[in-house]
């Protein structure tokens, strides 16, 4: 560890910045794709359901790494335009993780009781208003924990981009390893770096979940390391009256 010069640390921290960018941009595109595809899969028109299902199957069933190669190496040949590696990576990650995420969105939408939709019909809301004002806000808290898993998967998935020569953490680490001729210190360092980023993301998602549940008038459950959520009245009552 003491052999790491400031310059080598700099490489790693540049890598952290690139990984964070990839994660944030990939998640933004992925979330957009997940919502569009997930909602489309509940559409009443079969063709919309079919096409969105097809998208989900194709992008879930292909590898993000191969897709990345495809976007970077095949697209220029086929269509004559070349994406910079960073954007090829974001596109591949966003489209792939969006396909996974669409299943989270679809499942959460399906978990909202049909009676809520019926109440919306009884108030003569349009299908779009029912989705936006009733179903999505109620489905949202249930999407957050699985979306958190997916977000961390995405964070770790960004390491794939080093094969395109994008200077993320993993890429920086391989340069540092070559400079030092020693693997142990640098891989231990980046292990911690990934963990810290993942931990920060998880804390953020927990805050989001607390907020979302409070909007439904629910107290969040206490869980996880350093969780600040209070135990809800119902679970407290259950633990007293239960057993």
């Amino acid at each position, binding site marked *: 560890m003491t052999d790491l010069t400031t310059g080598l640390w700099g490489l790693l921290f540049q890598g952290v910045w690139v990984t964070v960018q990839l994660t944030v941009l990939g998640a933004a595109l992925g979330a957009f794709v997940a919502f569009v595809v997930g909602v489309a899969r509940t559409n009443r028109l079969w063709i919309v359901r079919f096409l969105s299902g097809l998208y989900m199957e194709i992008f879930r069933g292909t590898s993000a790494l191969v897709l990345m190669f495809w976007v970077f190496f095949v697209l220029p040949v086929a269509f004559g335009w070349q994406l910079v590696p960073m954007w090829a990576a974001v596109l591949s990650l966003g489209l792939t993780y969006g396909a996974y995420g669409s299943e989270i969105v679809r499942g959460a939408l399906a978990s909202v009781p049909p*009676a*809520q939709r*019926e*109440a919306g*019909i*009884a*108030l*003569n*809301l*349009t*299908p779009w*208003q029912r989705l936006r*004002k*009733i179903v999505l*806000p*109620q489905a949202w808290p249930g999407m957050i924990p699985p979306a958190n898993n997916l977000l961390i998967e995405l964070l770790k998935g960004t390491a794939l981009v080093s094969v395109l020569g994008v200077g993320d953490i993993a890429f920086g680490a391989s340069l540092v390893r070559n400079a030092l001729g020693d693997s142990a210190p640098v891989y231990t360092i980046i292990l911690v770096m990934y963990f810290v980023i993942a931990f920060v993301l998880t804390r953020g998602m927990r805050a989001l979940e607390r907020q979302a549940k409070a*909007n*439904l*008038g*629910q107290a969040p459950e206490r869980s996880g390391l350093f969780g600040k959520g209070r135990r809800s009245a119902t679970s407290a009552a259950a633990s007293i009256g239960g057993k």
Partner: protein
Amino acid sequence: MSAENTTPNDHANPAVDGSELIRFDKVTKRFGDNVVLDNLCFDVASGKHVTLIGPSGSGKTTILRLLMTLVKPDEGTIKVAGDYLTHEEKGGRLVPAGERHVREVRKSIGMVFQQFNLFPNMKVLRNITEAPVHVLGMGKDEAEERARELLELVGLTDQMDKHPSQLSGGQQQRVAIARALAMRPQVLLLDEVTSALDPELVAGVLDVLRDIAHTTDITMLCVTHEMGFARDISDDVLMFDEGRVIESGAPEKIFSEPEHDRTREFLSAVL
């Protein structure tokens, strides 16, 4: 108000005089092989309060759900205020109605559900103002003003900043009644609105409904097992069995001297 089935009975369908607000014409509804409504014809005149009684599975709730367009009839037509609810006329032919037509006719109908179905993602006040603002295009201030009046009517002005989950069942149902009234419906459908409530909360909800029945000219269709309430508010009672109206008439007559054996059996079981 009158009822008629494929089997003729004493209540012949009156000539169309334009006063009926709701008209079921030969409506059949099946769920799989189960015929829930069998060639049903009946009318409800504007301003009347009609109670549907009968054993469970006799099709009472299905009538309300058909009127609210939560389910579609397999055969027959339903008219509300002279317009087809589930169909529209195109080139002289009746075709299944599009979303826009349905919404236009449906705006005169409101419904209160057995399980309240308040929106948990909105506080009490917004549960009531949401549809007036976004469906009727009412200004936010006006909608809130009116919501406060309605909350006063149901006795819950002090609860408007709470989440539905913080209210008792009875309070939630009173909010649901206010929410339905906020849309100024001509017809209010009440689907077993006290069945999910603890016994001590039933009276409060029924008092609110009695108040509405006696002070407004809203037409009410009510499915209930509260026979005392039915007797209080109803102009007419329809007795259903196996998807048909087997007997109908004023509540005094149905409850005191029913003609049909089936009605007698049912009433002795529930009273």
